[in-house]
């Protein structure tokens, strides 16, 4: 069996790294510790509401975790489809005003194909009934 090298290599580097980690931690945690030692440990209370989240004095009504209709999200997704359409048509609009494309029917057909494929997303959503603004309610279980 071959002798294995078990010597502690790069001792100095490890020390340096440890020193920097300790220094960083003390810079991060030190102020918190110092402040904890110097701060008053409690505040004078009149109605014990120091932990109330809302900072306007009024008691909050209900929870902030409410449900939105999913219709809004679908609408945003469909906006994305239109958006990408327009995004890719900008370079076309820039380049199309060139003599090279002026008489070519092939390029025009290519654009039609491209926009057609992109429009399939909209067509799909149309068939799925996204454009009908109905509140979709689900059973809450």
């Amino acid at each position: 069996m071959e002798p294995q090298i078990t010597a502690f290599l790069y001792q100095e580097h490890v020390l340096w790294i440890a020193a920097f980690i300790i220094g960083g931690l003390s810079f991060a945690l030190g102020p918190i510790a110092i402040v904890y030692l110097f701060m008053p440990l409690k505040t004078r209370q009149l109605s014990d509401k120091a932990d109330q989240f809302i900072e306007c004095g009024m008691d909050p009504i209900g929870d902030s975790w409410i449900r939105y209709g999913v219709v809004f999200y679908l609408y945003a997704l469909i906006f994305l489809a239109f958006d990408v359409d327009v995004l890719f048509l900008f370079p076309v609009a820039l380049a199309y005003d060139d003599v090279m494309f002026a008489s070519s029917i092939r390029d025009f057909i290519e654009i039609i194909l491209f926009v057609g494929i992109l429009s399939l997303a909209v067509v799909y959503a149309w068939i799925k009934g996204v454009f009908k603004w109905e509140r979709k309610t689900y059973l809450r279980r």
Partner: protein
Amino acid sequence: MGTENVPSSVIQFALADKLINIGRANSLWPLTFGIACCAIEMMATGCARFDMSRFGAEVFRPSARQSDVMIVAGTITKKMMPGIKTLYDQMPEPKWVMALGNCAISGGPFAFEGQYSIVLGADEFLPVDIYVPGCPPRPEALLQGIIELEHLVSDWKRWKNPEAA
């Protein structure tokens, strides 16, 4: 009622406390909190003409958790009282309360028989440190109140006493 002594910290270091108190006196952050017409005078005090920032007190904080002074500027209705109590609770120590105007001191013109909606003075439920009289007090009066509060916070004086000299 919250009028007991100011809670203390783990470490108490007199020299540091002195220094920290000078800092506190020179940067009293009031709570943005106007409940009646005295607040208009408070706004005027914060603006350029009277310029509260000369005394380091112009930083009106919209959150109670960042403010040092609650300036009770105006009439306290019984409906508003729980809200004021909550705001006082949410302020960190050390905290001070200033009653601005006659309504906040004693109910002012609302102190009459058969009156059912107004709390007669902020010191009915708050530990008030400084009273600024007036209906409403002029901005100079509020500035004077802030200077008095500075003297209360620290024994450091903004100006020397001209009579002592």
